[in-house]
């Protein structure tokens, strides 16, 4: 399937969950917020939220420096 990941078309295996996507990208779930089609996904739902072809996914890093 093809996702729009952080604004870029990205081909990725089918039926991936948010947790699976973060694992594939080697991103620690606690370090980011994830938005799918303009909805923020709750951390508890990462393992059940299955991504679909055409989904728009934004992964936003926690950045706290000043």
């Amino acid at each position, binding site marked *: 399937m093809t996702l729009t990941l952080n604004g870029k078309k990205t081909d990725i295996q089918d039926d991936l969950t948010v947790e699976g996507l973060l694992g594939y990208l080697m991103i620690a779930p606690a370090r980011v917020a994830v938005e799918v089609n303009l909805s923020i996904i709750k951390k508890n739902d990462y393992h059940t939220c299955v991504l679909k072809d055409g989904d728009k996914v934004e992964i936003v890093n926690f950045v706290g*420096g*000043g």
Partner: protein
Amino acid sequence: MDFTEEQLKRYSRHIILPEVGGKGQKKISEAKVLLVGAGGLGCPVGYYLAAAGVGTIAMVDDDKVELSNLQRQIAHSVKTLDVHKADSAKQTFEALNPDVNVIPIKERLNSKNILDLFRDYDIIVDGTDNFPTRYLINDACVMLKKPLVSGAILRFEGQVTTILPHDGPCYRCLFEEAPPPGLVPSCQEAGVLGVLPGVIGALQATEVLKLIIGKGTPLKGRLLIYDALGVNFRKVKIPKNDDCAICGKSPTITELTDLPEEYCSI
């Protein structure tokens, strides 16, 4: 207030802009802005707001200037090493523009003092270096309904957003709760390109001035992410969360609390 000859000259490039004019410049000179942090972000934000003639600028920071700050914290210098950052910034900004009253607040924000410190200001600017304070500032601004211009930096990435409480999402709508201590590194641990806070701080100062003069579209409901290495600006829409613990329909946070100390090592 009427402008003096000198002020008309100083602010002429503002006054000539139809969106600012004498009226807008007057609003700028009457504005009261509080900056949390007189570091990487606080320095450029305060510097530009002082240059713009913002009448009152409070700087909240209890740190002193160290040599390792000078790679990016442009209001300080070797002459102010070991001086409180808030005092050092005051000297710099008032030297640039004597019209401006800079109020140094050499305290650490906490759940007890934050509401009283924020109450008298029109706009709050977040340039702090730790997550507990970011959440505290967000929650206090929602409670007081104060506009908040939030900025953050790490390595080569910066983020900016403008929070207009109850008229758009807040910081918690996007980042529900702080990451566990130690998971997200600090600039001290992971580094930061010295110019990055300049870019992000200038964007924050722009947002503040737009709010003051009431022109343009505020960066609300969107997080602007700057990737310096890829020269990429990405805007992520942030939905308002009806279940948000502070600005949702039935808030669960009704009074401010401090996160435990270990969170402070960001």
